[in-house]
């Protein structure tokens, strides 16, 4: 008689996974037995409707082989597309050229669709500012009046291959960073980072803000564009990998990548700049902005995620974004549908003179960075940022990254974190896992003042609202014939 399979266990040292009573794990640990204790909680917070749904969608049980395979195959395809993306910063071009659909009086904004009447203070401030900048209104007050009367066509950036930080204003004459995904041939766009302090992305709209935007349009954009066109563009995958090893997570900390990007562009800038004053101004502007790379990272994220859209039966998140009023997500298998819920307040640290009472709820398309496994997902690479979590110690940073590993389909083998033994950043958010674990994506974010025109007042961490993922899961289930 052949030896039964189970008999092997009697000949091997035990390596135990313990779920439930912690005492059992402690007893094993004390005896020197290898044990991993699971910090277990009921799936979906014990919500029986979702527990049932999840078991039909194959995260909680098996048995429906065909559906399991269909979802798994779709998700593997989606993950593979994400990981094989090859984003390169190729150009800076006017928005009119990047997005031919853009017209006068058309304003692309951050987040899921929203009209003027539901826009938060900073978003309204930015709308008024950009209308003056584009010459659609002589002053801010007139611009606001025009907005109230419906003079502007508001559309989300995400619908036009674009992303924008915080308020995310994208209009016809702005210069946009162009990132090309050379693996799939698509392009994505994002405005250039204006710097810190009082800026339009935080709702700033006075002359200082508008003059800076004009300089970006007239000088910085064309100068950068010429430099990038002079070479074969700036490949971003490797640059981000190095940034991770230098303590950036690409959302709240971009110091290393900003420096690396400037280093990469400097020779071409020097070669192509039309005069030394311009060159000097451009170099000084980039060098003086620790967050310069953020917008490049965002365009990169969009360029990587767009080819992942529309894969039937894939439960992978293709976009997370917020407009200051709503948080929205999109899922590969459910196409362009937004699943929205009221956006949450960030928790964090405030600049002197400001408190939570001044803060606007979370805002911006910058969560595309978390969608590709950076930002809050790569917190372990950037212990300095973990301080934003409030009382969290720098050593907590690793836990953030590992927790995000609970809700993702895999790790990025090229984007690794040295301090976590070269663990790849958690990649490919699966809505099923988010709902099952109750762990919402962690997002590192800047905090805007709630009133128009004031600007940034702090930085912190916010969670994506679970309600978005639950709605998305219901729609996803329907899309694969499960209800």
């Amino acid at each position, binding site marked *: *008689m052949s*030896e*039964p*399979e*189970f*008999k092997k*266990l*009697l000949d*091997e*040292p*035990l*390596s*135990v*996974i*313990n*779920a*439930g009573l912690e*005492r*059992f*794990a402690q*007893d*094993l640990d004390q*005896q020197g037995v*290898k044990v*991993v*204790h*699971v*910090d*277990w*909680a*009921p*799936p979906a917070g014990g919500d029986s409707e979702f527990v049932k749904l999840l*078991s039909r969608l194959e995260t909680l*049980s*098996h048995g429906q082989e065909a559906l399991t395979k269909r979802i798994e195959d779709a998700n593997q395809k989606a993950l593979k597309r994400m990981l094989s993306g090859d984003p390169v910063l190729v150009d800076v071009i006017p928005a009119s050229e990047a997005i031919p659909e853009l017209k006068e009086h058309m304003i692309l904004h951050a987040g899921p669709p929203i009209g003027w009447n539901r826009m938060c203070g900073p978003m309204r401030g930015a709308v008024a500012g950009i209308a003056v900048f584009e010459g659609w209104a002589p002053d801010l007050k007139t611009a606001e009046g025009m907005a109230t009367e419906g003079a502007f066509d508001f559309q989300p950036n995400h619908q036009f291959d674009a992303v924008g930080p915080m308020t995310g204003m994208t209009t016809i004459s702005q210069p946009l960073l162009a990132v090309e995904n050379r693996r799939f041939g698509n392009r994505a766009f994002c405005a250039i980072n204006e710097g*810190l*302090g009082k800026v339009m992305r935080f709702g700033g709209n006075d002359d200082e803000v508008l003059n800076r935007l004009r300089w970006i349009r007239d000088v910085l954009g064309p100068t950068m564009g010429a430099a990038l066109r002079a070479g074969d563009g700036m490949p971003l995958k490797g640059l981000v990998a190095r940034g991770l090893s230098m303590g950036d997570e690409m959302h709240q900390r971009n110091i290393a990548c900003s420096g690396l990007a400037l280093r990469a562009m400097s020779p071409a800038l020097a070669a192509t700049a039309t005069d030394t004053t311009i060159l000097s101004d451009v170099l000084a502007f980039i060098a003086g902005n620790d967050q310069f790379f953020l917008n490049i990272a965002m365009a990169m994220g969009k360029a990587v995620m767009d080819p992942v859209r529309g894969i039937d039966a894939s439960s992978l998140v293709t976009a997370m974004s917020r407009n200051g009023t709503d948080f929205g997500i999109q899922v590969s298998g459910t196409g362009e549908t937004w699943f929205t819920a009221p956006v949450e307040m960030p928790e964090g*640290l*405030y*600049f*002197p*003179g400001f408190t939570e009472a001044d803060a606007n709820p979370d805002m911006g398309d910058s969560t595309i960075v978390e969608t590709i496994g950076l930002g809050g997902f790569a917190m372990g690479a950037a212990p*300095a*940022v973990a*301080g*934003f979590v409030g009382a969290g*110690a*720098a*050593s*907590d940073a*690793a*836990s953030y990254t*590992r*927790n995000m*590993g*609970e809700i993702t389909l895999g790790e990025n083998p090229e984007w690794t974190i040295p301090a976590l033994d070269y663990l790849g950043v958690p990649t490919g958010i699966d809505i099923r*896992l988010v709902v*099952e*674990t109750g*762990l919402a994506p962690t997002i590192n974010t800047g905090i805007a003042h709630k009133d128009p025109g004031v600007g940034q007042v702090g930085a912190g961490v916010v969670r994506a609202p679970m309600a978005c993922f639950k709605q998305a899961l219901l729609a996803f289930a329907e899309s694969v014939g499960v209800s």
Partner: protein
Amino acid sequence: MRAVIVNEVRQGFYLDSVALMRVSRTIANLNGIDKAALMMGTPANRKIMKDAGLLDDVGASAAGGDLVIGIRAKDLKTAEQALLQSQAMLDQPAADAGSVSWRPKTLRSAFKSAPDANFALISVPGEFAVAEARKAISQGLHTMIFSDNIDLAEEASLKQEAREVGRLVMGPDCGTAIINGVPLAFANRVPRGGIGIIGASGTGTQEVCCLIAQYGSGISHAIGVGGRDLKSEVGGISTLMALDAMESDTSTSHIVLISKPPPADVAARVLDRIAKMDKPATVCFIGADELPMPANAKQVFSLKNAAQTACGMGNEFMNAKVPEIIDTVPARRKQIRGLFSGGTLCAEAQIIFRAAEEAVISNTPIPGVLSLGVAKSGNTLLDLGDDKYTQGNPHPMIDPSVRDDAIIEALKDDSVAVILADVVIGYGAHYDPAGHLAGTITTHQPTYGPLVITSVTGTDGDPQVRSVQMSKLEAVGILVAPTNADAASWALSAIRSKA
């Protein structure tokens, strides 16, 4: 309130802005402080501080590489104290927060953390246990389910699925196992040896393991199968798999099977399997009548006899000498009150009583014993670990204080001659159940009260140390029998000495 502004500039002192914001927040939260900020003195930062009303001439003179401390307080004294504290925070090296050890939150990520895992121990609430067990089995892990309240049909289908992929499911409601010398959940540290145990009962397995150790032999493995494995619906799937494994396991030379009496069809299947083995077996179906046994198997009727048979002690079962103190119980006290934490220990006591033809009542009666609901008075043997008692309460093996009320009531009851109580130690159990019992008895024992007779299920290798536990009981006049069966026999002797 007239605010006071105090500034200090530290030249050439750099600190990361996040670190500075954290200090700022701590200082700003102090009593009497209106606002506070620590920033590097760049023009932009100085403007922020000025706008916030935190900058005086001192701070205004700072350069970009200097650190500016700005404090606005209700009075100068408060401001200066806050300044001192912020300086102290700047100079103090960061306290080591200790490395935070991360734990996976799902089995899915636990598999990633421990790719070599071969065993899952699941004790989550019953409604979720089967789903978690399925995940473990699909990853190729053998699984022990401590959880109970699981549907019998689900248990059957889970075990069938696992068997198809060669994985063993121990449980549900499996409290005890020893695999490769490693005690799992509620189990004892026993020497390794040639006796393999397959147990559908947790405390039964514990008692037999510990007695085998006491008799100088050892255990190869103790495989738990769960209390319902031998029901017809499940058909003994895990028991049969365990028999297969034990048969081919060279370290096992003798097999002990412990279970409640199975239905005839399952008993036949299991005994047929045993008959085909070339190893001797001891079969203890607790409470069952005599059954025809295969030539290589011997049926025994108590846990003690199971251990003695397995150790080759033959038919001359040793009974411990009854202590003389048994005779001192006042004649008006006539009843035995058994208060057990282990269900199978309670059942074994019933077997002893039944064999001695002593009437007894139980909440978990074996065949031939009256049910608690039917008879109201007389000798009573209660399993306090039964579901009815543990709903909303910890199990008495984990928290012995849940047994206190019943013990106190028995101590005060004039009709009670003997309180019979088990003490179960080992991994999983309370850290000092004997100490707790001794304390309860000494506090509440009336003069000329009932005798208290116990036994300690455990070994000196256990964390609680059996001999230490026995001493704690003996020190307060509690009688400690060498086995649970002996404790029951002593109790019988005590009431019969009056007759």
